[in-house]
């Protein structure tokens, strides 16, 4: 009985040894190098929706059997970051994704330690001179729309308020949709928060402005500002 017991113990040891000895052969160290970047127009980062993996870039690396891209998620302030192994990569925007003219030109990046890259895009429109201020229970917004690429009408402009620093057309507590705006002159609009439960509860207020051109999957955004 004791002998068989020992045998069982030994049999249990077998997979354990196999498991232990399998380590260390096919494992890499985790990637340590860093790719830091921004999506920019005229040197200014382009604000986008930062939630829901909405705006992505794609990293490719040649010389391997498989060719799937690594998705790189663009944050709402237009920045992105990826941890990579050293090497040469190709960075492209995702097809028809983002508030800019679809352009799938490749940017070649050499990552060694840390690499910084700016991806130049051409938005259909930009927002400038954006002023957002809290006045009593409303957000006063003033801004200017500039046509850049052209060729597309403005679908709508949104004034968005949220209770966290993530504000976009999905994450918001109050929105005002404005149609029929044209580029050029300064526009002023008021977003009323008087009936907003989060505002009345004294929660923080963050705001930004979004513009969607007709037929694009994403809007272009101003940077988020904290108003309370």
């Amino acid at each position, binding site marked *: 009985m004791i002998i068989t017991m*020992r045998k069982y113990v030994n049999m249990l*040891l077998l997979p354990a*040894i196999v498991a232990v000895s399998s380590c260390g052969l096919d494992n890499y160290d985790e990637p340590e190098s860093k790719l830091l970047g921004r999506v920019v127009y005229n040197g200014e980062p382009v604000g986008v929706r930062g939630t*829901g993996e909405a705006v992505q870039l794609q990293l490719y690396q040649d010389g391997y059997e498989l060719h799937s891209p690594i998705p790189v998620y663009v944050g709402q302030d237009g920045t992105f970051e990826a941890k990579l192994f050293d090497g040469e990569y190709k960075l492209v925007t995702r097809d028809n994704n983002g508030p800019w003219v679809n352009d799938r030109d490749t940017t070649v990046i050499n990552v060694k330690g840390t690499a910084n890259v700016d991806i130049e895009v051409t938005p259909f429109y930009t927002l400038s001179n954006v002023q957002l201020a809290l006045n009593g229970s409303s957000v006063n917004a003033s801004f200017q729309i500039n046509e850049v690429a052209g060729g597309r009408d403005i679908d709508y402009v949104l004034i968005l308020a949220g209770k966290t620093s993530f504000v976009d*057309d999905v994450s*918001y507590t109050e929105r005002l949709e404005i149609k029929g705006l044209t580029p050029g002159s300064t526009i002023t609009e008021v977003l009323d928060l008087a009936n907003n439960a989060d505002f009345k509860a004294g929660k923080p207020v963050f705001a930004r402005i979004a513009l969607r051109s007709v037929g*694009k*999957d994403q809007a272009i955004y101003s940077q988020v500002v904290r108003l309370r």
Partner: protein
Amino acid sequence: MKKSSISIFKVLMLAGGITCFSSCSDFLERQPDTIMTDDQIFGDEVMVRSVLANYYGRVSWGQHISDDYTYTILDEAGKSDGGPDNIQGYSNELWRVYDYTLIRNINQFLKGLRETTAIAEDEKQTYEGEARFLRAWTYFNMARGMGGMPIVGDEVFEYESGMDITVLQYPRSTEAGIYDYIIGECDAISTLLSDKKNTHSARANKWVALMLKARAAIYAGSLANYNNKMPSPIKTPGGEVGIPADRAQGYYEQALAAAQDVINNSPYQLQLNKPDDLQRNFYEALSIKDNNTEVIWAHDRIYPGTGQQTSFTTRNIPGSHAEDIDRAYAGPILNLVEDFEYTDNRNGAIHIRDNQGNYIFYDDPLDAFANKDARLGGTVILPNALFKGTPVPLQAGQKIWNNGSWQTVVGQSDERDAAGRLITSANGPVRNNDPYVNKTGFFFRKFLDEASGASTRGRNSEMWFPRFRFAEAVLIAAEAAMELGQQPVAVGYINQIRERAGIQPLTSVTLDDIIQERRVEFAFENHRYWDLKRFRRAHIVWNGVVNSPTAQQYALFPYLVVAPGTANDGKYVFDRQVFSNSLHPRFFELRNYYNFIDLGWQNANPKIVLNPFQ
């Protein structure tokens, strides 16, 4: 360490020894009883039918009653089996079908069938038609999710080590190409199959093939039409997604011809067995199998038989009528209920407040739904409506008249006040997280089985799930005629449907009328999502805007009025509210019009190009 390694050696020796000895008997020399050779299958008609039955069991995709949560992710129903759903956007893989395993199996079947001599020629022809129909149906389900996909014909691919795999790699067809293939196959199949009905419409016949042809053609026509009316049509450079606009007319003509063939020549009809009770008539046309003249093809179910039933009734029956511990997993939402018109008013909003904003009082909660489209009662169990002959109570609480204002009182399950009047029904609706208590104000009626024991776990339900039915032929004909500018024809067809529903006829037909009619006629029948996609309306209806009338889900809560001494005491009022168990409005983005292509498929076959937005 040393000691244990010696023991391992012993163990291995022992194991090797045992293997050696036992191989000397013919214990392992047995014919497998789960793997059949081609000769065994195709030498025996019973086996052939059995294999075909297996394929019939593998073609349920998208919404269906055995996967009732799929009803809660659009704008038809909401879940009430516990905590809220967090659905906001839609997955890139939602209802994506990529079943080349099934297509290969069907092609193996066709090869074996064509070679056998054990089956009579006319039987062979029927089986060939059915197998090819199931293959065309599979391609159709792939196409409506992803656009054009590789068409492999009758090819059965075999791989041997070392061979050139590029000959196995087929590129994607164009989106028009895959619909053309399906339509062409259906034409051929329809000549192979019988024009007779079969038991419970479970097998494909000529009319099933023509229905798939009509549906594929109307999908292709509307895609060619409405995609190109978008500000930026969704397409790929190679046409894997995106059908040229000039193809629309041809597809509409094909759809109209196929639908009219079914309408004029098939043994089916718009079932009207109970003209005096149109609600009941509509329920029976969809949910009663015997003597049914409406349903052309269905996923049939039977008891007994392992895995052959559906738990839809078990899961969704009202608590008041439950026969087991399960109940009320989900319920239809107000959005759907209000899309059913009144007999004389196309705005179906439930009248709960008058012009001054005061409650409208009803003697019976069911009175609020008087004069509605008869299909409503056949699709949804309304508050206090009958199911299996007894009323289904739905009461959220009491509205107590208190010093000039209404006070809302909500109680525990089936709690009564001091006067013995019900406060909150055990059925609900409630706004809390209590599992298996209704939270929308309505229960499913369509496909809810009335048979005794159908809501027990041990038995479950034999309810079928119709995939094609006569009303679809009529509405495809109406839509195609409308798009071809044949208004009188379109009006004639749509009014057949509306007459059976007991609502006023139309004098002209627009796309919105088609969308509206299909929405209410085909609720829970796996049409809504695909319809809004092909009309390119999904991103407008499910726009992600909080409190949008179409993207947000709404519930309707009935209350008992407690106002002693007034005329309204004992009557009922309603509150419309955001459905508490679905936190976010539905958000369909442009990328959702086509499923994403899995990158693994592309790695295996570099000729596969990706979809837009990917």
